[in-house]
């Protein structure tokens, strides 16, 4: 059985239709890259899958582990194993990273019927994962993402993913704003989580990330539709030709 099945998904924000009929099937263990020009709807797709209410699904369906995903609250989706690494991680002053992550991990564990971790076990788990992400431990005691550099925020996302161990990870432009060393570390963290039972959707504008996180499939999103799908070589093709073939002129002018 597939892990995720998206059928003819349409979504809008305000009056504007952004997703205009997406079809995508993901099996356990597969890594799918979604590429496409800015404004094509990549983040919208990612946010819709995570349950952001701002985007209204107007038609279509999404089946996750045999369940109607769109009927679930964002927190229930997370508890069921969906994880979104945000393109723009949110700063939350006043809530410590450590407290936040512990609350998250323990609700997720509870819903999976696993015992909650005590402070000691939590700390040792967190330290191990921070080492993997080469993260500064002082970030733990800081408020969530507050005052973090762009790179620190992205690492923090993947660090959270490593702690929460999702079944379906959606990475939205995790590579943007990273220098090459940071990119290697982050990709290393992601690759360490690759598993026959864990699937990933890797959203990126650039092919660069896919040298490190090698996908099984590549899809090109343009104007809210998947216009082309292929194997990992499609990414290289796009690197050569750019997205010019995939976006109409009006759109191209609007996005710089």
């Amino acid at each position: 059985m597939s892990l995720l099945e998206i059928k003819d998904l349409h979504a809008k924000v305000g009056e504007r239709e952004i997703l205009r009929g997406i079809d995508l099937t993901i099996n356990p263990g597969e890594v799918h890259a979604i590429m496409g020009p800015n404004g094509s709807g990549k983040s919208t797709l990612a946010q819709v899958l995570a349950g952001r209410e701002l985007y209204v699904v107007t038609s279509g369906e999404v089946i996750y582990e045999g369940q109607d995903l769109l009927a679930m609250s964002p927190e229930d989706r997370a508890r069921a194993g969906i994880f979104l690494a945000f393109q723009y991680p949110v700063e939350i002053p006043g809530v410590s990273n450590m407290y936040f992550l512990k609350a998250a991990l323990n609700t997720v564990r509870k819903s999976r019927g696993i015992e909650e971790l005590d402070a000691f076990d939590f700390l040792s788990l967190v330290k191990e994962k921070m080492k993997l992400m080469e993260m500064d431990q002082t970030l733990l005691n800081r408020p969530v993402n507050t005052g973090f550099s762009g790179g620190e925020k992205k690492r923090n996302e993947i660090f959270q993913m490593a702690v929460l161990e999702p079944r379906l990870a959606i990475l939205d432009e995790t590579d943007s704003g990273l220098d090459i060393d940071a990119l290697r570390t982050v990709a290393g963290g992601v690759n360490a989580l690759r598993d026959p039972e864990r699937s990933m959707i890797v959203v990126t504008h650039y092919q660069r990330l896919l040298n490190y996180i090698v996908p099984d499939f590549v899809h090109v999103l343009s104007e809210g539709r998947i216009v082309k799908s292929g194997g990992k070589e499609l990414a290289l093709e796009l690197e050569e030709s750019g997205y010019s073939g995939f976006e109409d002129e009006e759109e191209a002018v609007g996005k710089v």
Partner: protein
Amino acid sequence: MTAVTEQIGRWVAEFSRQEPAGPWIQRLRESAFQRFAEIGFPTTHDEEWRFTNVAAIARTTFRAGSPDKLLCTPGGVEELDPSDAEAHLGHDAAFDRNAFVALNTAFLNHQVSATVLRIPRGMVLEEPIEITYEVAEDVACDPQESAMLAVHPRTLILVGANAQCTIVETYKGTGTYFTNAVTEIVVGDGAVVDHYKIQQEDSRAYHIATMQVQIGRSANFSSHSISLGGALVRNDVNAVLSEGTEATLNGLYIANGTQHIDNHTVIDHAKPHGTSHELYKGILDDQAHAVFNGRIIVRKDAQKTDSKQTNKNLVLSDEAVIDTKPELQILADDVRCTHGATIGQLDAESLFYMQSRGIGKSDARNLLTYAFAQDVVDRVKVQSLRDSLERILFEKFHEHAH
């Protein structure tokens, strides 16, 4: 009889019934009562009381009583008999324009004597001075009495030059009653004073309070006013600065149900080189109403004044109301004064971020609400107080969620 004379009439009997005090205190009481009789309770036509209607207090028949007083002072603090404090008691908290201060003064030393403390010059206190005024349930709800209980706690603290101390004033109780408090603090030159007021009155109680602070040269005074309880609450904090004084006024008010909490502050830069920082934050839910009015006066002499005022409000329901107003009266030219007020809701993006990590919506709301108050709580330097405040807030937001 006019409405005003009717209001006053109710108080006359209680005023005349009290045990006479020593000569000067009795004289002070009488002139205060006289003044109260002249001005009566304020109405919403009064600019200072525009958003706070005290008709419920004005209409009620009260009986004068007193709260239980619990005083905990570290060694070295002198407790004075109020009759020995003629030079200070009633000196700074003027009753000529404030009916509530007048009324408090008219009942000075009623049943329980005013709290008068002196911290000798140069003395550095490690432990806080704790003053708790509590209205016990059996006193508030005496079945023999039909009139509502009114108490008039009075506090005077004289901090000597270069002394350092922390003061924690707590107001609490059970039942339906009226607390009408006045606190005067005189901060000597070069002294460092950290004042906390925790208002945790019963949700049916009225709480009206004035704190008047006279701050000496190069002294450092900070006030933290935490308002959690009360049906109808008005806090006036008035600080008068001297040359080189540093004053900090912080506040946190949390109101739900039909609570009304009004914070009025006046920072009077009377002399040059003063600095003031003010941060008041409020969290409002249900049909609660809050008022913040922050007046900053910079007198003609007060050159090089540096003043910053911020008021931030988190509004959790559609029906809650906040009226916020800065009032700058700047008469000097070489000064820096900034002010800003915000009214906002919980950030939808932050909520979603938390939910996307598995945290339930109501927990996420609580965490964010709590986080909003965090920076004011973090400024509380008394560890035990900070801990209990964190616990109170935690419980408060937990009960909100359901």
